[in-house]
């Protein structure tokens, strides 16, 4: 009986292969977009998590010695005093960063290697092994230690045991730095008592950019999710249609004594089968998509944030699992309503298939109410909500509310068009378009979300780019930066530079608590460099003049937000009052920052002398200067930053980011275009009875076909127009709500009308292309098929 039932159900697909195709393709594409974005994210994260976890960069507090390296005895002394610290020995071997850690005490363990392989562990500890990616190992010359390729190690890094690193780097008995475990004993003497020369660096200070990276990934994830929603709308439509059309078959089966529960189980089984199939195709597609995108993303992230990630993709089993889960879950979501209706359908209910369109029209009222509810909820969340979850909930409510409201709004617009129609053909065009609306609304909702997502993400990425390049201009205003190792070197460096360059700008800072928040106080030299390049988010006129006068200060956004400081407020630094005259963006910095004039800084912090210098110099002389500094002071590239190089690289990297978002944009629009195509093809058969009377009264098939395309383009245009404000709200939510909740700073939003126009053109083109085939088919309908509509059923 089960077999017979299953065959009866499956025969539907044999007669409607297009529906099955739509379902599988939509679900595959949705899964592909989701898993592709996830793959890119996972891969990128895996790469630098491997580094961060092992090296304790950013995640953990660290201890360094002001004298350079830490004697190994001091490490033991710290441990024996109850300080749970783990040694790191690092340096360069053949120019490649070599890091030695102790797997037993490292808070992150030896994640990239894994101690499950006992033999490897024994060898690593007793004889030494160098772990690195294959590419990195190939760059390494002859070493008397076994090389072991591992894709879990961050690129361009060699990981080994601390003992091996000491030998290879000639640092016997020396430790470069200590990682402080996040959990420390209940009783512990203060650090100063055990090791007065050591400095404790709080977590994150080493990786300001990590937060920006997270922001980038969060946004990519949002993109993936939104793309998936687009797909699910289509799947929902396809499943709904299939269910409606199968009502007679289901009624017959039930009348034959097939239990409803059994039947539902069969359908669930069938849907799971289809979704697993589609999920597998989707994960495969996603993999190729990610593989194609990843080199760009890798370059983007390493350039942006100095995090190097591997440019190659490793197929991770978790994608299969998550991809299949999301495909099955998405199908469940899309099928829930249909299954519910089926479960509630009385045995003797009409077997006549209701047109899906009619069904949609009947639920129009409920939909409107629900859409209103969601949109009101979205505004309430934006107004009153706080927290990341509220931000995401707002996004979801906004998008789904807008999608549900779309048919209602479109219907209103079309009705207005109908009222203002001059000729009967115009009147018919508007009325007929209205009639098509229910059948097309799911596809149009998909287009709306796809378009809004693209507008949102383009705005976000472009705003990100503008902000970030502006920020680079501001922070790296000097052509060249030099870092001295100690005060003595700093003094001679300064004297040396002042004879050779246009201006030396010392950079000095002190740690202070401002309104209870840890902050860095900076005292830059008054110079046009700052006045010209420093952008304020909010400031009084002539802010720099007031700061230079000595009684005023500028603070970063983080401090302003956390301490609730606004322009005109007063803050106290080392007992001195300062009026806040400017607030500036300080992206990626986790702590507060204050800028006061150099004279005030020197008066308040007489003990601090600058170690870092910005150098204003003709850019063409930068290379020569860095060579001179290398020769005269033994400074290495670590101590010098060439601003022009960094900026050029970041811009190049941003362009690659655009390639990635551009590719994703086109993909999502293609998915929406596919939805329109499938909806139009489904509607095509229902269209004949609607068009035949018009044709019979003297309109050519060719004209009707053209009107079909015009109709699709019109609907796409209206949808696109509605998507624009929605996309901008989306971008605003991402930049001003989600980002603030997640990272504490707000990215300013810029508008990019040209990008939007281009996207709209894409969307309209997608709709026109989607309508082309159905319209051509319609224009070529044989008269005899049109006449069948009127034929007598005798």
């Amino acid at each position: 009986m089960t077999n017979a039932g299953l065959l009866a159900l499956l025969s539907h697909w044999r007669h409607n292969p297009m529906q099955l195709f739509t379902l599988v393709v939509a679900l595959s594409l949705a899964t592909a977009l989701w898993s592709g974005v996830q793959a890119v994210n996972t891969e990128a994260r895996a790469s630098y998590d491997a580094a961060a976890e092992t090296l304790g960069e950013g995640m953990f507090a660290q201890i360094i010695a002001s004298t350079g390296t830490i004697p190994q005895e001091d490490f033991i002394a710290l441990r024996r005093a109850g300080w749970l610290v783990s040694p790191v020995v690092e340096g360069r071997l053949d120019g490649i960063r070599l890091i030695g850690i102790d797997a037993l005490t490292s808070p992150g363990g030896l994640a990239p290697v894994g101690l499950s392989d006992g033999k490897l562990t024994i060898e690593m500890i007793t004889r030494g092994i160098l772990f690195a990616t294959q590419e990195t190992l190939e760059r390494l010359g002859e070493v008397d230690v076994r090389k072991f390729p591992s894709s879990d190690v961050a690129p361009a890094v060699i990981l080994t045991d601390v003992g091996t690193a000491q030998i290879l780097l000639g640092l016997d008995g020396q430790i470069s730095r200590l990682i402080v475990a996040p959990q420390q004993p209940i009783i512990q003497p203060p650090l100063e008592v055990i090791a007065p020369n050591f400095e404790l660096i709080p977590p994150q200070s080493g990786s300001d950019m990590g937060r920006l990276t997270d922001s980038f990934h969060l946004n990519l994830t949002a993109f993936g999710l939104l793309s998936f929603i687009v797909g699910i709308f289509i799947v929902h439509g396809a499943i709904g249609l299939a269910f409606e059309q199968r009502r007679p078959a289901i009624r017959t089966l039930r009348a034959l004594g097939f239990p409803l529960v059994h039947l539902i189980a069969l359908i669930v089984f069938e849907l799971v089968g289809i979704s697993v199939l589609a999920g597998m195709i989707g994960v495969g597609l996603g993999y190729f998509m990610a593989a194609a995108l990843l080199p760009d993303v890798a370059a983007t992230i390493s350039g942006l944030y100095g995090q190097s990630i591997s440019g190659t993709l490793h197929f991770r089993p978790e994608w299969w699992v998550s991809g299949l889960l999301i495909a099955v879950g998405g199908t469940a979501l899309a099928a829930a309503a249909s299954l519910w209706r089926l479960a509630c359908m009385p045995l003797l209910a009409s077997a006549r298939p209701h047109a899906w369109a009619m069904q949609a029209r009947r639920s129009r009222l409920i939909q409107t109410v629900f859409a209103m509810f969601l949109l009101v909820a979205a505004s309430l969340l934006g107004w009153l909500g706080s927290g990341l979850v509220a931000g995401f909930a707002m996004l979801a409510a906004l998008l789904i509310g807008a999608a549900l409201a779309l048919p209602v709004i479109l219907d209103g617009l079309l009705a207005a068009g109908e009222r203002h129609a001059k000729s009967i053909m115009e009147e018919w065009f508007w009325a007929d378009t209205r009639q098509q609306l229910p059948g097309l609304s799911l596809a149009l909702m998909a287009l709306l979300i796809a378009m809004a997502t693209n507008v949102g993400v383009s705005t976000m990425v472009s705003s990100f780019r503008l902000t970030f390049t502006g920020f680079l201009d501001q922070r790296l205003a000097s052509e060249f930066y030099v870092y001295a190792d100690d005060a003595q070197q700093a003094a001679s460096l300064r004297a040396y530079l002042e004879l050779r360059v246009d201006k030396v700008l010392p950079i000095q800072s002190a740690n202070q608590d401002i309104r209870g928040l840890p902050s860095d106080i900076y005292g830059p030299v008054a110079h046009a460099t700052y006045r010209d390049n420093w952008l304020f988010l909010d400031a009084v006129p002539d802010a720099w003049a007031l700061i230079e006068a000595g009684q005023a200060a500028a603070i970063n956004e983080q401090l302003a937000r956390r301490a609730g400081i606004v322009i005109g407020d007063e803050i106290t630094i080392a007992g001195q009052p300062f009026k806040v005259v400017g607030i500036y963006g300080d992206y990626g910095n986790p702590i507060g920052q204050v800028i006061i004039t150099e004279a005030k800084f020197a008066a308040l912090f007489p003990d601090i002398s600058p170690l870092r210098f910005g150098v204003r110099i003709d850019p063409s002389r930068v290379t020569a200067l860095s060579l001179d500094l290398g020769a005269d002071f033994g400074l290495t590239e670590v101590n010098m930053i060439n601003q022009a190089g960094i900026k050029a690289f970041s811009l190049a990297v941003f362009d690659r980011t655009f390639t990635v978002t551009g590719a994703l944009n086109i993909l999502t629009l293609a998915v929406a275009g596919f939805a329109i195509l499938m909806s139009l093809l489904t509607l095509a058969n229902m269209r004949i009875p609607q068009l035949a009377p018009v044709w019979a009264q003297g309109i050519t098939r060719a004209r009707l076909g053209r009107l079909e395309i015009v109709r699709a383009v019109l609907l796409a245009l209206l949808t696109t127009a509605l998507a624009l404000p929605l996309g901008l709200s989306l971008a605003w939510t991402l930049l001003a709500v989600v980002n603030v909740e997640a990272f504490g700073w707000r990215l300013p939003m810029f508008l990019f009308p040209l990008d939007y126009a281009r996207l709209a053109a894409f969307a309209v083109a997608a709709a026109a292309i989607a309508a082309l085939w159905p319209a051509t088919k319609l224009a070529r309908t044989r008269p005899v098929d049109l006449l069948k509509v009127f034929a007598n059923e005798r």
Partner: protein
Amino acid sequence: MNARVFLLLLWPITASAQGFAGLGTDVDGFSSPQRPAQFDFPIDHGPHYDYRIEWWYLTANLEGLDGTPYGLQWTLFRSALTSNVGKGWSSPQLWMGHAAVTTPDAHFVTERLARGGIGQAGVQADPFEAWIDDWQLVGPDFATLTMTASGPDFAYDMVLNSDGPLVFHGDEGYSVKSAEGQASYYYSQPFYAIEGTLILPMGSIDVAGDAWLDREWSSQPLSDNQTGWDWFSLSLEDGKLMGFRLRQTDGSYYTSATWIDPNGTTTSYSNSAFEADPVAVSDVGGRDVPTTWNVRLPDRGVDVEVTAINPQAWMDTSVPYWEGPIIVQGSHTGRGYLEMTGYD
């Protein structure tokens, strides 16, 4: 005598990133315990690097001023990755410390790991000192010790004094662990009086009681067909009893026990003389762990019920096990410690 360590060193441990994983079950290059056992003190209180594994294992039954019972554990394990000698970081010696405090309704556990050869952990025999990080068990000699340990949510500082002799298990300290003849060197100091302060999240508590220190070393003491271990140390009115039961894959057991008179005189019991059967099982984090036992040594008329003071005394360490204080009732009354492995 703490079987868990045997097990953790001999079982394939895949999930543990930092455990003493990957040790082969061969004894190549290491010494094996030989009969008759011969000890040389105080040297034998120190490490025996030619054996693969070794420990200094102290458990204590304590009582606060208000009569609340507490349990305390301080353990230092040594494990050699190879029998080669290596200096500094390349030393094959690894050290692992476990410390715990058990109250009737809470159980505090912490773990430390260290490489040998760099001074972060170790043991020296004379004057006696065993340490890992800031934890230590130290004294002018083995009879007079101070002991400290600390974790994220607890710490303790104790003084120990023993008035009895060392006690040797099995055949004068040669302790057989299976019918196939696997064995270890095993002696104890069960006669410590202990007092000091527990620092717990709820405050400091002054406590006093008695403690039992186990010393054991070997290279391959368990046989392949042994799956877990139940170990008892009981302090009764007329003596002390150490007994263990090794569970075997076929459902049978291998048992061994030592009866210790108050003056330190011992009687060893070989397989089957000692019996222990679970009476009640507790749900410990989703695992079924027997926390009430019927323990018998018919030769001494012992037939008691042993109950955990806190059934949730789970050691959530690299290799997890159950270890906690117990109350003894029945033919004899008293208190003691129970250790169970192989229930995770």
